[in-house]
């Protein structure tokens, strides 16, 4: 009797283990950073200056980190059915491109060019622009 119970418990544990691996590890959805505290807070100008000055150093410092960037909205694009906020900089042709998390686009629709915003996202690196993914709007500082 107790042997049977042990086998049943054992099987249940294995089943739970498989479920955990399948849903918790194998099928884990991409990161949601709503409740993640940013490791760095920085202005879009400063961030771009650092990437222009020494890309590999800036890569080592910021890539794959959750960072909060403050800047002025240059443009909001809806290319490929995704909302992206482009933050302007003193250096004209370089921007910070923030690809917004699809669940948070309602906040983005209200934004206008020229507005100062804080966006939190995961920094992916630098091409012509600094690229940030999974971004969410942190706080609107326009009216302060």
């Amino acid at each position, binding site marked *: 009797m107790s042997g049977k119970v042990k086998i049943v418990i054992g099987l249940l544990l294995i089943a739970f283990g498989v479920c955990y691996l399948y849903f918790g590890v194998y099928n*884990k959805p*991409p990161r949601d950073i709503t409740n993640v505290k940013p490791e760095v807070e920085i202005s879009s100008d400063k961030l771009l200056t650092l990437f222009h000055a020494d890309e590999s150093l800036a*890569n080592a410092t910021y890539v794959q980190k959750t960072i909060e960037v403050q800047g002025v909205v240059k443009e909001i694009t809806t290319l*490929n059915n995704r909302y*992206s906020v482009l933050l302007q900089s003193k250096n004209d*042709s370089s*921007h910070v*491109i923030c690809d917004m998390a699809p669940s948070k686009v309602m906040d983005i629709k209200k934004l206008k060019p020229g507005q100062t915003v804080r966006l939190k996202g995961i920094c*992916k690196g630098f*091409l012509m622009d600094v690229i940030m993914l999974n971004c969410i709007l942190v706080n609107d500082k326009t009216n302060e």
Partner: protein
Amino acid sequence: MSKITTLFFVFICFLGYAQEETRIIARQGQVSFFSYTSVENIEATNNQVYSVIDLSEKEIAVSMLMRAFVFKKALMEEHFNESYVESDIYPKLQFEGKIPDFDTSLEGSQTKVVKGDMTFHGITKDVAIKTQIENTAGNYVLTGNFEVGIVDYDIKVPGLLAPNIAKIIKIEFRFEYEPYEEK
């Protein structure tokens, strides 16, 4: 005489203007790849691919961050960046090439072959990619698809996972260009 001189200057100014306007840029080009096997299908999209075309030189450059590929599953993204393309060591894919018989004056659609060097995972290879070029009043859109063998770029797949990853990866791209602005 003075009329001719004026005309000459106007012409020079026009030339200068025309030369400035020959570059077009795409900051948010889209590149997707697909790996189909009987075990699982993997696909990922990069929506922040950078590209510049110099219309007068018929030259094209493309650059993308491997880490900017978005997957449906976090584990796939982790394996892709850490085990296969090694994004820490090779963060970018770069392509530089020419579109030799590109007719920049032609409106509408034309299909051309883009030839150039693709550098990825530390390996540079000659590639030729058939590309559809759409020109609507000076707004260019380039689209196309091609295939890449993972062996060609030295992507190693551990034996256990070999059935999960296709030997040939399908790639699709779409770039919408706008005039290059230096404000």
